[in-house]
């Protein structure tokens, strides 16, 4: 009943804020490419202070993205990039095909002026690479480089196009994927996209028609490749490698972009239509748009370039349905607006949008009546009044159906048929039958009941003792007259004198919200504090436009005297927000180190402890000790030496134990040394014993 008891006001505010923010994630869904992408591009591809974008590949990605998005860059940057590319192209004999490929493409995008002599050299070099290599990437770079040079108005012809085509095709696998070279065992989806792009470049560069049967085979490969496409529940399709642990794994964005690039390029140059379902193309478009604004420049380039290929391709042009706003207010009679555009937001051909189904938040079908949306030609928006839909506040899923008006467009555009969008409807909630009063006992004979108006602050004045109860009840109903259960309904009692707050959750049933505060059970919780309590009621919900925090008035409580052991009320902070402020610093106290004697003294005593040893040795000499008893025969002598060496080793081990080893390592070594010592010691000492016994008997 009092689950939230003691929650301070600041926390209540916080909860209300969180409820409001909870609507926000609905807003991020599929939307066409917009100015947000342009500003993101400017940030992601920011030139370094010296005016360069990094290496050739990054430079190409930057200038290509700017080209697609129509972002103008100043002349200085373009000049720098052109010079950078020209330097690489001029030294064509020493540069790898990859660098020439990127440099040629940079020149193509920026329309840099490059000498035709330079391009002749580059073309010769790239053709030489094509002859020598069987690596897919090398072929891709050189064919792509040649195509870029040709597109810049330079005359380039690939003489043995058929051979090159076969060389690339030879690397394809039966499932429509490609290998990187003849030696590699792994096939890759990314490589398939690269290969298709290279094949389309070969077809463009060929001096004569490429064998049409070969093209038909590649078309079949593409269909098989699209059989490996992966999908999410919401109609999003994407490509990813079969084995994500492969050495050259690139991630779904790069892989999908590669396939989109390859397939659309191939469809552009190959005659006839590719047999790919439109929903998969649309799904790919949804995948790239659904990423939103990627954080890395590489992903951003892949997203934008893939979308630009999808925007205008010969397979299917995807048409994306999106809602400019996903939150609708019943109060302001918002219109449901739907945009159907290409991925870059251009207008779609004439089409009809129908609302076919409305689903509630729990997937319950609200209505299945088909309603056609009106078309506003000026704003390119389809609209519908939501009032006749008879939908209440809350979350809904709308199912739209798109149908193209002209038959011949069916083969050009992919609309995907039905589209589901989530929306959120808000409205004014009616509050009435609010009553507050004090009752005496369980039977509920109410002494004083006051009707209050929760539309505005009221100031009822009540008084009660600990044997009485406070009752509060009210009803909430939606614009359509149904009962409404907000996320938060709290009653707050605040003691005037000590500022101690008590928060109670007001439970709601189907009919009404009602709370009964039995003060008898609450005296301890109230810390036996009698006096004036202010009453406040908070009702809040994300769908409720008139969420409120009302002052209801006050209640004079007469509670019994506190017994001896009663808990004291906690001290209330002057500023309730101060508990979010910095905490008091905890200073750690370390034990100050013991006073140590001067170093000299310690050294003197170290020397002194050595003195008795000297005395011991001198004493031994005075006594005339000798080593005559040391065995002279080789074997016993060896054992005796080993015995002494063993003792020395054990002592050395002890020193090591003191310096760095732990007990377990020490004991491990000691067990080996001990066994050895017992063995040699036994041998050495028993020899001595036997010799002395002999002397005795002799």
């Amino acid at each position, binding site marked *: 009943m009092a689950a939230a008891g003691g929650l301070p006001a600041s926390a209540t505010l916080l909860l209300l804020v969180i409820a409001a923010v909870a609507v926000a994630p609905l807003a991020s869904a599929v939307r066409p490419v917009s100015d947000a992408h342009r500003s993101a591009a400017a940030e992601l591809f920011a030139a370094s202070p010296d005016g360069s974008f990094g290496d050739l590949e990054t430079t190409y990605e930057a200038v290509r993205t700017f080209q697609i998005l129509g972002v103008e860059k100043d002349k200085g940057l373009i000049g720098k990039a052109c010079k950078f590319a020209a330097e690489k192209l001029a030294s064509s004999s020493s540069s790898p095909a990859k660098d020439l490929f990127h440099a040629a493409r940079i020149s193509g995008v920026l329309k840099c002026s490059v000498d035709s002599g330079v391009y002749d050299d580059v073309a010769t070099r790239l053709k030489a690479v094509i002859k020598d290599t069987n690596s897919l990437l090398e072929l891709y770079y050189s064919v792509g480089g040649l195509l870029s040079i040709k597109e810049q108005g330079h005359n380039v012809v690939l003489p043995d196009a058929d051979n090159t085509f076969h060389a690339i095709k030879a690397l394809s696998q039966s499932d429509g994927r490609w290998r990187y070279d003849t030696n590699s065992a792994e096939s890759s989806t990314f490589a398939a996209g690269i290969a298709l792009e290279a094949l389309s470049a070969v077809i463009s560069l060929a001096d004569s028609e490429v064998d049409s049967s070969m093209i038909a085979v590649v078309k079949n490969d593409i269909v098989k490749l699209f059989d490996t496409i992966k999908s999410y529940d919401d109609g999003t399709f994407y490509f990813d490698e079969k084995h994500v642990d492969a050495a050259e794994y690139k991630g779904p964005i790069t892989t999908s972009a590669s396939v989109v690039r390859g397939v659309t390029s191939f469809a552009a140059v190959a005659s006839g239509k590719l047999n790919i379902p439109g929903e998969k193309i649309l799904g790919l478009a949804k995948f790239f748009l659904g990423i939103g604004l990627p954080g890395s420049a590489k992903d951003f380039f892949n997203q934008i370039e893939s979308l630009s290929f999808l925007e205008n391709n010969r397979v299917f042009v995807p048409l994306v349905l999106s809602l400019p706003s996903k939150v609708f207010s019943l109060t302001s009679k918002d219109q449901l607006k739907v945009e159907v555009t290409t991925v870059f937001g251009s207008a779609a051909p004439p089409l009809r949008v129908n609302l076919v189904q409305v689903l509630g938040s729990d997937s319950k079908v609200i209505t299945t009546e088909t309603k056609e949306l009106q078309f506003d030609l000026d704003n390119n928006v389809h609209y519908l009044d939501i009032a006749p839909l008879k939908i209440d506040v809350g979350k809904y899923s709308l199912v739209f159906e798109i149908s193209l008006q002209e038959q011949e467009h069916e083969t050009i555009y992919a609309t995907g048929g039905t589209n589901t969008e989530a929306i959120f409807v808000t409205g004014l909630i009616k509050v009435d039958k609010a009553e507050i009063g004090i009752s005496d006992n369980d039977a509920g004979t109410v002494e004083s009941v006051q009707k209050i108006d929760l539309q505005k602050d009221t100031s009822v004045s009540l008084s009660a003792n600990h044997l009485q109860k406070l009752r509060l009840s009210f009803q909430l109903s939606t614009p359509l007259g149904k009962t409404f259960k907000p996320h938060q309904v709290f009653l707050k009692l605040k003691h005037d004198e000590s500022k101690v707050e008590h928060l109670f959750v007001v439970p709601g049933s189907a009919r009404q919200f009602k709370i009964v505060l039995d003060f008898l059970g609450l005296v301890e919780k109230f810390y036996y504090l009698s006096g004036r309590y202010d009453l406040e009621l908070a009702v809040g919900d994300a769908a409720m436009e008139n969420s409120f925090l009302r002052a209801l008035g006050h209640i004079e409580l007469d509670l019994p005297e506190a017994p001896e052991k009663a808990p004291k009320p906690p001290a209330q902070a002057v500023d309730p927000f101060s508990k979010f402020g910095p905490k008091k610093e905890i200073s750690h106290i370390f034990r100050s180190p013991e006073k140590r*004697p001067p170093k000299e003294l310690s050294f003197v*005593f170290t020397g002194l402890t050595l*003195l*008795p*040893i000297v005395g011991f040795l001198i004493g031994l000499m005075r006594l005339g*000790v000798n080593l005559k008893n040391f065995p002279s025969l080789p074997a016993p002598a060896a054992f005796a030496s080993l015995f002494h060496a063993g003792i020395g080793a054990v*002592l050395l081990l*002890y020193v090591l*134990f003191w310096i760095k080893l732990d*007990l377990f390592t020490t004991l491990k070594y000691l067990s080996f040394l001990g066994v050895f010592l017992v063995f040699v010691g036994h041998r050495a000492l028993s020899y001595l014993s036997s010799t002395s016994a002999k002397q005795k008997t002799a």
Partner: protein
Amino acid sequence: MPRATSDAKLLIQSLGKAYAATPTNLKIIDLYVVFAVATALIQVVYMGIVGSFPFNSFLSGVLSCIGTAVLAVCLRIQVNKDNKEFKDLPPERAFADFVLCNLVLHLVIMNFLG
């Protein structure tokens, strides 16, 4: 008084004479005991001067000396031929015991040394 001094002198002289008759190996052990106790005393003096701060180090230092001295005394008892009690015990066996006990003692000492 002079009488007492001369008595003491006499006593010490006779003691010295009697001790001279002690076998050399026992004398070596005695020297060893004196050496150990002297080392312990020096450490005690050091502690008296600078205080007992690394107390476990002091304890292990002194107890190492005292412990080995006690072990040496035990060795002396066992090696002494006048002690009939240990007549059957060869001195080599006694020495082996001495070595073993010293090794165990110093393992503990090293552990305690810190």
